[in-house]
């Protein structure tokens, strides 16, 4: 039997444990895909979780989305005015919010609100032996807790994103309306005029990926929590940090990939 003191490290201790963590997380994600497609599906629990996620973040998304739309329009106005191009404002805002701001802001808010609460909830179930209690009653805790939550975030966050886009555009409309007395219909027509199908498609894909990331990271950190109550706090904290980091990374990658498509 190998003793830890004498165990040879592949690189250094830190790099080794980082790599082990990475492969664990990968195995966790693979397990999700294996279990997600086998019955039982716990549909009711997925719906419950989706509602909870939606309700938890709705108010914050409403406020943030609205303010971002409003402020962004206000700030962009002077630079367009210099060119006498304020009539382009709606389409500029439309592109910015639909392509980038809507999905990103939603994902960041949800990483904070939803990711941390998933991490804390599953983490506390782990350290108080509730997950083992499920196992001994022949209930698959991975399936009941993890798959349902990951599916819920993956489904709900795109919807919240869409909502954020609408609210953001509305905030922008308020500004445009007071400055130029534009009607709401013509504002939205203008806003969507330069948005292509590919933009909307990309935006949805991004939200789906962000939602999946938030769910998987939150569950993974919670499911592997140790060291009692301290571990629960750490799981919640790490869930937020790691998922935010991954969201930015994914944003960059997806935008790059989609730009290649655009040039075809």
């Amino acid at each position, binding site marked *: 039997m190998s003793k830890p003191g004498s165990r040879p490290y592949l690189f250094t201790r830190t790099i080794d444990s980082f790599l082990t963590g990475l492969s664990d997380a990968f195995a966790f994600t693979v397990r999700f895909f294996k279990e997600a497609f086998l019955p039982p599906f716990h549909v009711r629990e997925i719906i419950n979780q989706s509602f909870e996620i939606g309700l938890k973040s709705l108010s914050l998304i409403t406020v943030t989305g609205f303010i971002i739309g409003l402020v962004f329009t206000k700030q962009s106005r002077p630079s367009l005015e210099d060119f006498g191009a304020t009539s382009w404002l709606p389409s500029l805002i439309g592109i910015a919010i639909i392509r980038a701001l809507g999905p990103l802001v939603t994902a960041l808010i949800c990483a904070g609100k939803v990711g941390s609460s998933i991490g804390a*909830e599953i983490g506390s179930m782990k350290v108080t032996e*509730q997950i083992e209690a499920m196992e*001994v009653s022949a209930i698959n805790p991975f399936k009941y807790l993890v798959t349902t939550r990951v599916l819920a975030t993956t489904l709900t966050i795109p919807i919240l994103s869409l909502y954020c886009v609408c609210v953001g555009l509305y905030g922008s409309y308020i500004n445009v309306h007071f400055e130029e007395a534009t009607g709401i219909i013509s504002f939205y027509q203008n806003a969507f005029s330069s948005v292509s199908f590919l933009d909307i498609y990309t935006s949805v894909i991004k939200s789906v990926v962000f939602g999946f990331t938030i769910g998987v990271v939150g569950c993974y950190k919670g499911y592997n929590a140790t060291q009692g109550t301290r571990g629960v706090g750490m799981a919640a904290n790490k869930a937020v940090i790691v998922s935010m980091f991954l969201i930015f990374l994914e944003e960059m990658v997806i935008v790059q990939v989609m730009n290649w498509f655009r040039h075809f």
Partner: protein
Amino acid sequence: MIKEGSHQINREESVISITGLEKSFDELEVLKGVDFTLYRGENVAVLGKSGTGKSVLIKIIVGLLKPDAGEVLVLGRQVDKLKGRELDALRLRVGFSFQSSALYDSMDVYQNLAFPLTMNKKNLTKAEVDHEVKEALDAVGLASKINEMPSDLSGGQRKRIGIARTLILKPEIILYDEPTSGLDPVTSGEINDLIREVQERYNTSSVVITHDLTCAKHTGDRVAMLLEGRFSKVGSFESVFASEDEQIKSFYNYNFTT
């Protein structure tokens, strides 16, 4: 063989049979060759100091932990070789009552009990589930708490709800992890009675882990003493504590003289 109660012990049929069980965590050797047999209908009280691996032992019995060496047969099946459906099927026959109660704190008492039942028996009607929940709560004397949240219960009540949640699946074997720790003598006494009652009413075999000699004496048909990773003494309460072994004697003295 028939004891003073109404329960019957069948010494021909073992429900748990462990030979040469070893388990370590990194460099910490916890179990170093445990041999143990539990017969049908029998209660065995497992005694031992804190940190000797009592919880580890029963977690191995339900397959929550894997043994490093040795053979663990539960109801004729080798637990560490089972997976998926087969393991689940075995776990339904083995109840596990956690040291920490481990109630689901997002669910009320009713849901805590109904959850394992509805997840495992899909075709039960609502009325049948209600009936089972009520029966299990009656068995532990807490029917009035049916709609409370676990956080609103006392430690002793949580323990009893934990036991009720174990009973609801009608297991053949029950593993109790320190059912009376941290409780006052009266509540402990009630739980001891409850363990005996369950044994008689449902005809179960049990392992009762405890530090508490009153509990061991009251609930155990036999007593097993876990010392340094092995069962050093197994037998009737009197025979184990008649031993001249220093550690066993000090265990006895601490319990009854402080």
